[in-house]
């Protein structure tokens, strides 16, 4: 009995202390006043004072500030649209690859699979960095296009939203491909043949049979790209320009450059609230899939 208690208590306490408690602190600080001391906030709540004091001293000033300064809501909006657009782009690029993998000869598949996973193990930072040399004004892409004669003057891609899209698609592509491939791999090939036998063209069979049956994989892949892309920091700060507004970057700057901790915490709380919806939807999709498999 004692042993079971220890087994449960150790990871439980660890997570409580290093996961849940920090969130409560973020919530608390987001409701504090800004001060120019270190730590740069005046605590609203002295832990000993109790709950009543807590509620009477709550200060939503930071949240009000978020709605007044249009930097923040613009950042949320633009994060959302960048994440959404790049998720769709990833789907458009990832699906044909996953489909090709699922139709490849059996003996190739482990190798293809390994080739998809390999970039995942290499450093995220390095993969983003690799694009800096390609997309810059004198980068390889421009050199290549100039050499082809398609353009006369170099295109400005680096430090624009386009570069951010490319970065997100590139780094998150494996997350899109793997669940779709898993769904397609289970798909019985005779289903397509049956659809063709019943009078579908190849394309129609794909649309009516393959796409619906890989729906769970598509949904899972989209969430796996969308959720982390929304809070992304590295990609917009390396590939994006000063005009690229993403909430992860705003939070970072609010914290490290402006040293405004209460506002940074408020930004984090709102980001979390926005993320709750896709996370819950994602969990539901996973659960449905798990039930369907039983």
């Amino acid at each position, binding site marked *: 009995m004692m042993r079971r208690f220890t087994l449960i208590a150790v990871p439980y306490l660890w997570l409580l202390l290093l996961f849940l408690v920090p969130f409560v602190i973020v919530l608390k600080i987001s409701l504090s006043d800004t001060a120019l001391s270190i730590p740069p906030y005046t605590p609203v709540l002295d832990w000993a004072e109790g709950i009543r004091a807590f509620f009477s001293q709550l200060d939503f000033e930071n949240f009000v500030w978020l709605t007044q300064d249009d930097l923040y809501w613009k950042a949320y909006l633009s994060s959302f649209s960048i994440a959404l657009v790049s998720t769709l782009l990833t789907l458009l690029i990832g699906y*044909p690859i996953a489909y090709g993998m699922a139709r490849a000869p059996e003996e190739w598949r482990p190798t293809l699979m390994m080739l998809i996973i*390999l970039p995942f193990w290499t450093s995220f930072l390095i993969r983003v960095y690799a694009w800096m040399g390609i997309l810059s004004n004198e980068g390889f892409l421009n050199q290549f296009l100039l050499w082809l004669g398609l353009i006369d003057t170099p295109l400005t891609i680096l430090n624009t939203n386009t570069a951010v899209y490319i970065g997100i698609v590139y780094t998150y592509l494996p997350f899109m491909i793997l669940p779709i491939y898993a769904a397609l791999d289970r798909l019985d090939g005779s289903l397509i043949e049956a659809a063709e036998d019943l009078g579908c063209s190849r394309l129609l069979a794909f649309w009516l049979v393959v796409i619906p049956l890989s729906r769970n994989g598509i949904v899972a892949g989209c969430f796996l790209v969308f959720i982390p892309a929304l809070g992304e920091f590295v990609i917009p700060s390396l590939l994006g320009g000063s005009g690229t507004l993403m909430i992860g970057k705003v939070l970072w700057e609010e914290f490290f450059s402006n040293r405004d901790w209460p506002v940074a915490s408020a930004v984090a709380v709102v980001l979390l609230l926005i*993320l709750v919806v896709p996370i819950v939807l994602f969990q539901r999709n996973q659960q449905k899939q798990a039930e369907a498999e039983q």
Partner: protein
Amino acid sequence: MRLSWFNVVSLTLGFAFLYIPMIILVIFSFNESKLVTVWAGFSTKWYAELMQNEAFLNAAWVTVKVAVFSSTLATVLGTMAAYVLIRGGRFMGRTLFSGMIYAPLVMPEVITGLSLLLLFIGIGLDRGVLTVVLAHTTFSMCYVSVVVSSRLATFDRSLEEAALDLGCTAIEAFRLVTLPIIAPAVISGWLLAFTLSLDDLVIASFTTGPSATTLPIKIFSAVRLGVSPEINALSTLMIAIVTIGVITASLVSKRNLARQRKDEQLAVRAS
């Protein structure tokens, strides 16, 4: 099934998209010129320079230390958590527990980093190697626990009961039967935790102090100023290590699979 031209084209373009940036990176790490985009002949001088760069070497050493400690700790805690999730039965706050296991997987790194930093400041813990290890352990134990619990879920429980039946205590049953069987999952959990820790920039930036700069932090601050051949050389080394690791792992698993097939044939013939 056969590949249509469409499949071939999409696979070729897809893998080209995934690999060409890294190949370019590797090639230009051997460039003579300081200008990374113009080829000026083969040279390994950037590697030599890298080897003399104290700051990078120090950062690499800190990173490896952090990764080893945090992934080992995360493997122990994550395996315990997986065992509790699958075998723990009912206990108070089980839903909260499984929520706390899955939440960090989808949490934006900026939020995790910020919240941990505020905790460390709140309890007055000096930021350095220790705080980064604690932070990395917390989020990577969740990954370990997901990997291990998916293995435990398919584990035939009667194996443990058989061990008890044959005279094992609960601890002996775990050590002699459960652990050897789930070992591959525990090892891949450790590897995952290790790479996550090696890779992490955001959480480390929040939770570290001036005394413990990790490699990603160092690379990030260097890269912000633009592309440099030294970083290319460093990236190439890291890519090489990972590639060798992954290819070795897949060859080992391929060989094991082949051996298992042979064994099964042997079994059929033996009957």
